[in-house]
Every structure is written in structure tokens, then in C-alpha cells.
């Protein structure tokens, strides 16, 4: 409750009330079922009301929700025989990006995604999902493994951005991202990109090149954080909500700008309210998109991928 965004308060309060009644009901061995059912119906209604009227800034808050499922949560629900692969074979294993292979719907997939970590200790060890160059180099290494052995690739994007630090610059964070963008485009297997939380600028794009790019309903994707934009435009972060509006960073905005191919729905209260349900929706989408791509010739995949990003943008001529 302490960490929940303001708009979620009525939902959380109702949920707590229902839990209370339920335990009361158990103690009394029945009698309150009708009351509970009424409250549960009310809860669905409130959820729908709250989540269908979110402002862009509230969507930012939801995308950053501390309980939002991360890559390894989705891996756990969706991918069988999961094997995590570590390290970039050059410098280190960056825990802000995880990579591995697992099976979904009987098909092996390379999975690469940001990982923010759940508790304080984990968040620190994963640097809050902000990768260093070695994270991007690990991602590319494992994705190329997919290319080499004909294994399709899924990436999950959820990062505030690449880490702005001395070591990151010394080891060429810009070069690592640039090389990833170029070289991932040339990997000869289907690549499905899904923005699951925060799509934070170049730090997102470093694993954001693919044949199809999807966003979960409450994910965001932006060239700069609303806070960063506000401090440049208005010299004050307190205008972050205005910046969130101006940047057009919601899934629906990006669909309208032809930057993404589609939106993957989330459970009624958002992915964090039902991680298993969110995983199911994600899994179904991955299988559907994979089936559209699996028979396309590798050379055609690559050409179309380059053309896809080549079309993006608007200008006068």
C-alpha cells in the first residue's frame, strides 16, 4: 500500500476489505459470502473505472509499479526447461539484463530482457534494471546464438535507461548500443520485441530491434523520461505530468505513430494485479506472432526489419 500510486488507492482499499472479510468469514465458518461477492463485484467495477481513465503520467507510474512483473517472472510462468546464460565473455555478467533459452508452446526461444529485481538487495545487484555495456554485449552474444542455431528470439523491455556512470562510458556504452541496433537487425531468425514496463530511451532500443514490436497495455516507451523532459523544458521536475502528456509515450500513442505493431492486453487491474494472467496473455501473443514469422525466409526477415525501421518518422518533403 505504501508503494502504490495514488490512483490505485481505492482498489487497494477494497482489496484489503475483502481480505479482511474473508478471514473473518473463515473464523465464523460462513455467513458473509454474499457480502464478499458484492464487494468483489464492486472491485471489478472500480478497477475498470480507474484503469480506463489513467492520465499519461499515471500510466508512467503503473509501468514503474514496484509489483509489476519483470522478465524472470514471465520466464517462470511461460518458459519450460529454462537455462540462463551469463556474461559477455569480455568483462562481466551484467545482472540488469538476463538472457537464456526456454521452451514456449513446444518451441525453444532465446529470451533476453531487462531485470529490475524485486527487493532492495536484488534491485541493487541488478542496478535497478539499468544496464552497463556488458549487458548489451551479453544480450547480443546470446541473440546471435539464437541466429546461429535457428532459435527464435523474444526480448522483454523494462528499463529506466542505460546506466549513466563512469565505467559505462569508459567501456563504450554508446558503442555497445549502436552495435546492438545494427547487428540485431541482421540476425537471421524471427525476433519479437515486447515492451513490458518502462521503455527507457537508448537503453531500451539496445534490445529493441525486431520483426515485430509490441507493447503491453500499460507500458510506456519514450526518448527521455518525463522528469528529464520537464527539467529541460520547464527547468523543474514537478512538471513531469505535463511532460508525460507532451511526449506521447503510451502504448496507444505509439500505435498511432506507427512505431509499434500492436498492444497486448493486461488483466483488469494491470499486470501486477494478476501476473499469471498477464503471462498467459503475453504467451498467447508470442505464439501467435511467432506463427506469422516462422516460415519467412531469413533474408526476407532481415530486409523487412531494416525497411520497417527505415519507414519510421514524419517530415515534409
Amino acid at each position, binding site marked *: 500500500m505504501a508503494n502504490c500510486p495514488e490512483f490505485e488507492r481505492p482498489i487497494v482499499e477494497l482489496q484489503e476489505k475483502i481480505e479482511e472479510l474473508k478471514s473473518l468469514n473463515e473464523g465464523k465458518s460462513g455467513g458473509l459470502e454474499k457480502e464478499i461477492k458484492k464487494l468483489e463485484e464492486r472491485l471489478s467495477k472500480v478497477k475498470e473505472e480507474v484503469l480506463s481513465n489513467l492520465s499519461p503520467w499515471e500510466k508512467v507510474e503503473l509501468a514503474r509499479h514496484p509489483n509489476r512483473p519483470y522478465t524472470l517472472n514471465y520466464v517462470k510462468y511461460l518458459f519450460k526447461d529454462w537455462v540462463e546464460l551469463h556474461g559477455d565473455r569480455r568483462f562481466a555478467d551484467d545482472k540488469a539484463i538476463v538472457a537464456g533459452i526456454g521452451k514456449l508452446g513446444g518451441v525453444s526461444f532465446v529470451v533476453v530482457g531487462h531485470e529490475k529485481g524485486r527487493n532492495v538487495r536484488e534491485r541493487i545487484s541488478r542496478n535497478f534494471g539499468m544496464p552497463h555495456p556488458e549487458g548489451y554485449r551479453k544480450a547480443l552474444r546470446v541473440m546471435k546464438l539464437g541466429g546461429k542455431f535457428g532459435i527464435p528470439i523474444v526480448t522483454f523491455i523494462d528499463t529506466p535507461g*542505460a*546506466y*549513466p*556512470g*563512469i565505467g*559505462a*562510458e*569508459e*567501456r*563504450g*556504452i*554508446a*558503442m555497445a*548500443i*549502436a*552495435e546492438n*541496433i*545494427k547487428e540485431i*537487425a*541482421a540476425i537471421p531468425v524471427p525476433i519479437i520485441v515486447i515492451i513490458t514496463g518502462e521503455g527507457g*530511451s*537508448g537503453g531500451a*532500443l*539496445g534490445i*529493441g*530491434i525486431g520483426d515485430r514490436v509490441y507493447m503491453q497495455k500499460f507500458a510506456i*516507451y*519514450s*526518448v*527521455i523520461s518525463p522528469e528529464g*523532459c520537464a527539467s*529541460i*523544458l520547464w527547468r523543474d521536475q514537478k512538471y513531469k505530468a505535463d511532460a508525460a502528456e*507532451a*511526449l*506521447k*509515450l503510451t502504448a496507444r*500513442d*505509439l500505435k498511432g*505513430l506507427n*512505431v509499434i505493431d500492436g498492444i497486448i492486453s493486461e488483466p483488469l487491474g494491470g499486470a501486477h494485479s494478476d501476473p499469471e494472467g498477464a503471462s498467459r496473455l503475453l504467451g498467447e501473443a508470442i505464439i501467435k506472432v511467432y506463427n506469422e514469422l516462422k516460415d519467412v525466409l531469413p533474408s526476407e526477415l*532481415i530486409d523487412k*526489419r*531494416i525497411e520497417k*525501421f*527505415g519507414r*519510421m*518518422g*514524419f*517530415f*515534409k*518533403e
Partner: protein
Amino acid sequence: MKWFERRKRVEKESKRKEIPDGFWIKCDGCGEILYKKEIMKNLMVCPKCNYHFRIDSSIYESILLDEESFKAEDENLAPSDPLRFRNYPEKVKKAQKKTSLNDAIICGQGKIEGRDIEICIMDFNFIGGSMGSVVGEKVKRAIQRASGLELPLVIVSATGGARMHEGILSLMQMAKTATALNKLNTPFISILTHPTTAGVLASYASLGDVIIAEPGALIGFAGPRVIQQTIKKELPEGFQRSEFMLGHGLVDMVVHRKDLRETVNILLGHLC
């Protein structure tokens, strides 16, 4: 063309652009008050400390290319306002008036010592050399032309990164340009000038077959202030400057402005 003629051309171009005003100018490098004419003669480099003043795209054109050899392409490409972003059209108009350019880059063909090349030169005076849809599209087309015409590609970068006013679309220009380079089958020389940062450094600027930096240029992904605020420590001396990048193995060489043309020419002689 002889050296003193080139200097004259640069001098003429600098004068035409009227930068900077007045007879005297203070060097940002050493603080020395210098006679403006002296610096112009020196390709806008401080004769005392070698500080490289920021210069316009048209001056790079006269430094790098044979006289009258530049033929611009896609000059009519101009920004639209897809996000209806606060004050963006006004900002664009002001920049267009100030620079006589439609956006922050010029692209086309030119010659170096008689050799045909495809060249792009960014212009920092246009909204900080930021990359929006026009810059991305022009770079992509230059890459495609270089491939189609089998010309080597030279890109001079001067930029603060992606253009915030075009939001996610400006981020996608990184994808547009960097993925297009997969199809380039000719040599690509990337020249990084002060500053080359963020989204442009994290796309085409870092993907040259050879990467050259001008002395003292700020070259980095994250801005120094952002890094300092994040790590809450003093940044090391010379952090994110060309020489730092060279020391960390991230650029091939640091080249004085007066040697830029000759260096590119020699490199192309080897690579083409």
C-alpha cells in the same frame, strides 16, 4: 587546392556566417583574448592552446571538400510536428532562419582530392544538432546512395543527441540509421566533433569503419551533469573528451582540424 587557398575559403565562409561578432574573441580553452582574423586563418582553432571552436556545417564543407564540389541532396526535407509538441514549430522556424538550413544536417556528394564521396555534415546551430525524423531520414538516404553509387561515406557529427520534440520518433531514427548501415558495402568514416553525444553517438556515429575525433571534443552517451548527479562524485579530469575516448579504445585517432582532410584522403586511399 593549396593550403593558403583553403584557409582563405574558410575565412570567407566564416565571415559570411558572421561568427563570432567583433574583432576580438575569447578562447574557451585558454581564456586568451584573440584577434578574430587570426583564428579564422587557423580554421577556427586557437593558435595558443589548440582549442577547436565549434564551426558550421558549411565551414566543414570548405575544410574537407574540393572547392565547389559539394552537391546537396534532400535539401527540401523539413521537420513536421507529429507530436504537436509545445513551441516546436516556432523553434524550428527560428533555427531555420538562423542557419538557412531546413534541419540539422547537410547531405550530398562532394570530392576530396578529386575522389567522389557521399558526405553528411551535422550542424550544431540547428537546435543543438539534434536528430529528429529529418536528420534520420537524410542519413538513411545518404547511406543508401553511398551503397547505390558505390561511394565511400563520410559523416561529420556535431550533436546533443535525439530531438526531444519528436519524442519516440526521434529515438527511432537511431534504429533507422544504424540498421540501414547493414546494407552499406563501402567504407564509412565517422568524424566526431564537439559535441557528439547521446542518441547520435549510440547509433551511426559509433559505427564508422574508422572513427576520427577532433581534439577536445565532448564525446559520450550520458551528459556529464547527469552522470555527476547519479554517482554523486567528481568526474575525472578530461572525462568524455576525445583523448579519454582514445585512451579507452573507443575511437581510432584524434586529429587536428588542419589535418582532417589529409587524413580522410589517405584513409580512403587505403580503403577504397
